Every structure is written in structure tokens, then in C-alpha cells.
């Protein structure tokens, strides 16, 4: 949410001193966030609907749940299938995607499965998952994997498949082996798109775990959302929704930091 730098912010920084109003990138970002919460607060007072709480009411409910510990307990429950599912999807998804990008037979084997999975309405599959895996953590983990893995696999495959032919030729011209070509050229070259897939995959994993908690058995954050809705404690319900959005954005932002740090150091400068 706050981790990406948009080109607009950069130009505001560089035009500093010439414009009458001096605003730094950080200030502009804060204005954007504060403006959103202000609009929320006002529309909560209008009110749009009795089921739409104000921002301040939502924050009060969030603090209440933080201090009584219920939010942490809920996250502990939600994170287990989420991290397991995202971890499995990331590891196997990138591996399968890389092999598809490098090898025609692997492509023929995996592509139909993941293309169909990506196109299918996964919520409709969740009853099937409960038939197969019951209502425990396995079913929820499978739901996360089904949502997260197609995006990760297909992005990785496309990134590796479109590796720069010039760089590959360069590696061969300097006597690089096939393994060096893959590890030192193709994968770093594909890293930005692989990481874009991972970020989308993590976001999809969040959708998967919330869907599973709403549709399979109410636990964790999904339970807070559905329980508070059923007893009409809307500020608490919105607080849970807001917390999961913030949490998801922070995780996606951390992935982006890791990418730049370990794979694309040149992005730190001059962009």
C-alpha cells in the first residue's frame, strides 16, 4: 500500500523549489492515506447504510480486538494454512514454471492443468475440497494452493520462456554451460516477472484462505468477519477486513523489497 513509489511522486520531489507548494514524496503519500480515511469517516456519518461504520468506529473496534488478543489469535489460525499454502505454491510453482520455460515436454505436461485452474471459478471447487480433505487445515491449505499456484506457475513460465535471446547467446559465446546459462542469466533475467507473479500469488493466497474460512469452517479472520456480521457488530467486521488488507499489502511490499535486494540491485538506483 505504501511501499511502491509511483512516478508521480518522484516528479513532485524533483520539482521541489520551483512549485509554490513544497511537498515531499512522503507528505504526498500521507495526504493520500489521510484523505481516504477522512472520506471514509464522513461517509460513515452520512450514513450510507446502517451496516457501514465510520473510520473512527472501525479503529476503536480494531484496538479493542488487538488489546483483548482476539485479533492475534485469529491471525495465528489464519496464518497457518496461508503460509503453508503460499510456501508450497511459491516453491513448486517457481520450479514447475522454470521447467516449463526451459523444456517443451514439461510445458505440454503442465500448461493445460494450470491454464484451466487459473480460468476456473475456484469458489465453486471448495465444496469438492471439503469432500476430499474434510474441514481441517489441509482443506484450507489446498484452497490457498489452488488460488496461488496458477498465477505463480504461469508468470514464471512466461518470464523464463521469454528470456533475452541476446543474453543467452552471450553466455554461450563466453563458453557458459547450460546450468550457468540458467542460473546466471535466464533466472535473474526473469526475476522481475517471477516476483510479480509471486506478489499476485500471495495476494491470491489471501483470497484463498479467507474464502476457505468463510466457506469451509469459520476460524481465524474469516470467523471474526462472519461472526461479527451475524451479530451486526459492523465496526468489528470492518476492522477485521481492514486488518487483512493492510497485512496483505505489507507482505506484498516486503516481497518487493526482497526482490530488489537479492535479485535486481540496479533498481535501487537511478529509476
Amino acid at each position, binding site marked *: 500500500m505504501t511501499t511502491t513509489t509511483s512516478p508521480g511522486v518522484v516528479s513532485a520531489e524533483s520539482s521541489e523549489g520551483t512549485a509554490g507548494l513544497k511537498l515531499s514524496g512522503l507528505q504526498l503519500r500521507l495526504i493520500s492515506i489521510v484523505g481516504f480515511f477522512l472520506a471514509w469517516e464522513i461517509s460513515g456519518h452520512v450514513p450510507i447504510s446502517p451496516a457501514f461504520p465510520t473510520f473512527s468506529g472501525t479503529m476503536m473496534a480494531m484496538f479493542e480486538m488487538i488489546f483483548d488478543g482476539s485479533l492475534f489469535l485469529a491471525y495465528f489460525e489464519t496464518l497457518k494454512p496461508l503460509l503453508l499454502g503460499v510456501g508450497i505454491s511459491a516453491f513448486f510453482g517457481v520450479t514447475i514454471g522454470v521447467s516449463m520455460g526451459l523444456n517443451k515436454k514439461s510445458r505440454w505436461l503442465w500448461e493445460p492443468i494450470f491454464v484451466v485452474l487459473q480460468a476456473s471459478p475456484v469458489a465453486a471447487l471448495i465444496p469438492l475440497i471439503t469432500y476430499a480433505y474434510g474441514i481441517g487445515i489441509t482443506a484450507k491449505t489446498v484452497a490457498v494452493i489452488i488460488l496461488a499456484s496458477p498465477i505463480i506457475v504461469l508468470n514464471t513460465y512466461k518470464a523464463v520462456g521469454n528470456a533475452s535471446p541476446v543474453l543467452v547467446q552471450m553466455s554461450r559465446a563466453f563458453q557458459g554451460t547450460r546450468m550457468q546459462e540458467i542460473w546466471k542469466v535466464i533466472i535473474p533475467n526473469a526475476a522481475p516477472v517471477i516476483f510479480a507473479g509471486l506478489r499476485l500469488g500471495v495476494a491470491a493466497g489471501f483470497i484463498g484462505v479467507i474464502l476457505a474460512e468463510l466457506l469451509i469452517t469459520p476460524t481465524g479472520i474469516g470467523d471474526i468477519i462472519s461472526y461479527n456480521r451475524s451479530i451486526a457488530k459492523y465496526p468489528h467486521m470492518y476492522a477485521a477486513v481492514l486488518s487483512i488488507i493492510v497485512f496483505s499489502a505489507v507482505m506484498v511490499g516486503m516481497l518487493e523489497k526482497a526482490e530488489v535486494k537479492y535479485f535486481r540491485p540496479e533498481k535501487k*538506483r537511478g529509476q
Partner: protein
Amino acid sequence: MNKAIHMSLPDATTPTDPSANIVSVRGITKFYGSDVHALEDVNLDFPTGQMTTLLGPSGCGKTTLLKIIAGLLETTSGEVMVKGKAVTSPGPERAFVFQDFALLPWATVTRNVAFGLELTGVPLKEREAKAKSYIDKVGLSGFEDKYPHELSGGMRQRVGLARALAVDADVLLMDEPFSAVDEQNRRKFQEDLLHLLSVENKTVIFVTHSIEEAVYVSDQIVLLSPRPGRIHSIIRPELDRSSSPDDIRRDKVYLDTVEEIWGNIREYLD
């Protein structure tokens, strides 16, 4: 008066003396698929320590021939001899400079220059020291830790040249190395290249579509005819290399040779 000397085409049956010609190609024919006929029976010798330019209109197969010599493309028939041995893949005696630089965008200038050494397993300290010395030689001191996107086109190609020099190959293969460099930098770069090569004692095979560039830098110019590429003629411009770059560009032999080659190429453009 034209002092450029014309040579007869090498005969496919003549045995080559490996000490005089470090690279020879014999009977090279190349088809892309079944219908694109890129090269037809090309026989050529590349004398050791000299700069040979492959020149011709676009589509004459000059880059194809260079990549075949590099071992990056397979021939349909014919063979490439390097130091008397037939080769079909890249080897340590040849290094390549790419038209569009082919630098790793995520690697610093130092790592890019050292990349050829990295691939052949030279230890980190040793390859960085070697990279540093070639970075200095191509005039990029102070840019060791920059990334390619922070450099101009001319500077990027200097990195590409330093990478090729760092692996210490006897033969440098250069594929239109200045075509993505602006005109002022191109001239400066040509002069620097000639100076550097006189010190490094390399054999250079150079592809270009610029007649002036070919005449300015070459000991031997191979003029190719368009598809399928055949050798039209071989020209050796007899320029006095000891005079200044500006004098060479005003020299009568230089100007006459450029005119003559242009006359030959013009036939193919009509």
C-alpha cells in the same frame, strides 16, 4: 590513383598455413530453414594479427558468417578452422562483442566485464583485478560500480569490449559494434579501438555496414554480395596508419577506396 590492392579469392583446395591465418573458413553454406539461402560456398582466410572487415548490403549474411565463426550458429555445410583445428562451438580462442552490447542489466560494470572469466571459473579476486585493468584500458575508470542503465550507449559498448578483451582470446569477433553508438562517440571509439588493438595484438573480425568505418579500421575488407552471400571481392586498403586520424580520413587512398566500394555496393541496391 588507387593504391588499394585486390587479392584473388582463396581457393578451396589450397591448404592453409595455420601460422599465417589464425581463422579460415572453407566452403561455408548456410540455409535458414529450407528457403532462406544466407551464404553460398564462402572460402576466406583471416591473417593473424590483422583486422578483417566483413562488409556488404543488408541481408548479405555477414552477421551469419560471424556467428558461424563464433560457433553460435551451425553451418549447413563447410567448416571453420581456428588455429588449424575444425570448430563447431564457442571456444577460449574467440571472444564476441555484440551489436546491442548484451550486458547483464543486474550486474555492475565490474561483474559484466568479468563475466566471461566467471563462466570459466576464474576465482573472484583474480577476475576482478583483471576486469579492473581492462575497465581502465577502455577508459571507464570510476564507473566500476555503475549498472548498465546508468551508462551511455558508447560506454556500454566499451564494457562489451572490455569483457571480450578480459578473456584474453586471440580472435575478437565484433558484430556491428558501433551501430548503436552515436556518430561522435563512434569516431572516438574507432580511434581508441585501433590504439588498443595495436597494443593488445589481436586478430579482429569485424562486421559493419559502414564503408567509411570499414576502410578506416581494416587491413583487409571482404565485400559480400547479397543473398545468398558470396565473396564479391577482397580489398586491402594501403593506408599510412602512422598519420593522425584526421589525416587518414583526408588521405586520397582512403577516399578512393571508399568510393570504389560504394560503386560496387551500389550495383546491388538498384
